[in-house]
């Protein structure tokens, strides 16, 4: 079980991690600034296994891979959104962070709710109800399963 942190539609990658932190030497030095503009307490409150739940077009804007990387570094188990912007979606899979499309979840959960994600079966359980989520395309599932794109280079 993890807690839900909820965000609106069109959350751009500048909100996830602002430009002024991107040239910091490491992701660890950036991560405490995650979602600073939208929820100043996010980085200190989020715990490993928690979830980000959002409306449409999550992760639009800049191609900065630091955006999914800081979420992963903080232990976010998955981002569940009605839809994702293309580059964020691809970057997340590439670094091995699940991004799940669910058209229903955003409308039924609220900030702080507990939820569980079963990646293998593609289901989310919260508030006593179970919701199915959209499967990843096979190519992306394969990348995620091997632990990200770089893993294939080390074979």
């Amino acid at each position, binding site marked *: 079980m993890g807690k839900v942190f909820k965000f609106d539609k*069109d959350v*751009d990658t*500048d*909100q996830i991690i*602002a*430009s*002024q932190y*991107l*040239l*910091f*030497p*490491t*992701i660890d030095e950036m991560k405490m600034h995650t979602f*600073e*503009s*939208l929820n100043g307490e996010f980085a200190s409150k989020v715990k490993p296994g928690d979830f980000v739940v959002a409306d*449409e*077009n999550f992760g*639009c*804007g*800049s*191609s*900065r*891979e*630091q955006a*999914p*990387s800081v979420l992963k570094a903080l232990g976010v188990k998955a981002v569940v959104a009605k*839809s994702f*912007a*293309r*580059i964020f979606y*691809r*970057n997340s899979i*590439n*670094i091995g962070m699940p991004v799940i499309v669910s058209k229903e979840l955003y409308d039924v959960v609220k900030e702080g709710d507990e939820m569980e994600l079963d990646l293998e079966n593609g289901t989310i359980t919260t508030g006593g109800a179970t919701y199915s989520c959209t499967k990843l*395309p096979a*190519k992306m599932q394969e990348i995620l399963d091997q632990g*990200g*794109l*770089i893993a*294939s*280079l*080390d074979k």
Partner: protein
Amino acid sequence: MGMTMAEKIIAAAAGVDACTAGDIETVTLDRLMSNDGTTHLTIDMYNNLKHPRIADVDKLVWIIDHNIPADSPKTAASHKKMRDFAREHGITFYEGEGVCHQVMMENHVRPGELILGADSHTCAYGALGAFGTGVGCTDYLYAMVTGTSWLLVPETIRINLHGKLRKGVYARDLILTIIGRISANGANYKAMEFVGDGMASLSMADRISICNLCVEAGAKTALMEVDDVALDYLKDHGREPKAIFKSDEDAIFSQVIDIDLDEIDPIVAKPHFVDNVVPVKECEGTKIDEAFLGSCNNGRIEDLRVGAEIIKGKHVADKVRFLVVPASRAVYKQALEEGLLDIFMEAGAMVMNPNCSVCWGACQGVIGEGETLISTGTRNFKGRAGHKDSFVYLASAATVTASAIKGYITSEV
């Protein structure tokens, strides 16, 4: 069945006869651009590989443009890492030469190429009939090591342009109008292809500006047919096309949009979304603290000429900062020769070195709490130009310059 321009470029790069939207193809890339926004992280990942290697170093182009000159010791360290690695491996390297996409257009991009850039605005290269698309540093590293990447072949939205923009209306107004119409994710995963009789009146500067901003509608790439305007630009810059593609008559488009250029008005995108567009007159009078003329979208010589003509003999409003940032060293030198920089300086503007400047909100000219910027930059997201509680309006070079003179948003001087 006919193929779109996007499908043809991908098929050629994949070494297959044909491909269709929805297919996944492994492509051999022509060029790989990366800038200081993420390259320090790419290098760290590279150094952690079990078998670090570069498939074809001649295809790599690295450009320091976002935070140049460095604004802090941390930035300086990240730049040094990039500079040292480029030197050690013999990577084509630019520093302080201009915003990455302008440097790429001036020096590298050729029609028919498939280019990955570790920057979302890589779609600008479509102005020369090249398939450019933005990636993160993991995709970049994979491509750097293998020379390849996998691509989901995109559907294409075809945009037919008719007629001609009226005087005082610019490419920026056109593309903001289109983004406003289809929304910030209206082209997510898709290619946006621009064709029609209206293309003839659009300069290369206009075309780069249009293609560059397509990612703000979510587009994977933007594409334009290669015509005499594009070929003249290539020739002027000493290059030849790799290949010239255009969509077949019977190609399948996911959507076709017709735009009458004569009907476009001066537009602003209001905070905090690029698709939040209204006619300038609806924002007329909104007080500004800073104006910015520059970026990969509108920092070319044509944009500086527009601004200089408007501000010549006039002055920036009291207590307003006006930043003028040519998009490249070549643009800077030409503006110097044409006397444009003198005009801006006389008018009280700050003319700065070519870089991404306040468009990306971490370099120079950032705005403080409660302040308002009008900008030819690419984005107006919350906090994009500095403090999280500040406001960015996007507009053409003309509207930005007129607003700098008046101290409030206007397209009239």
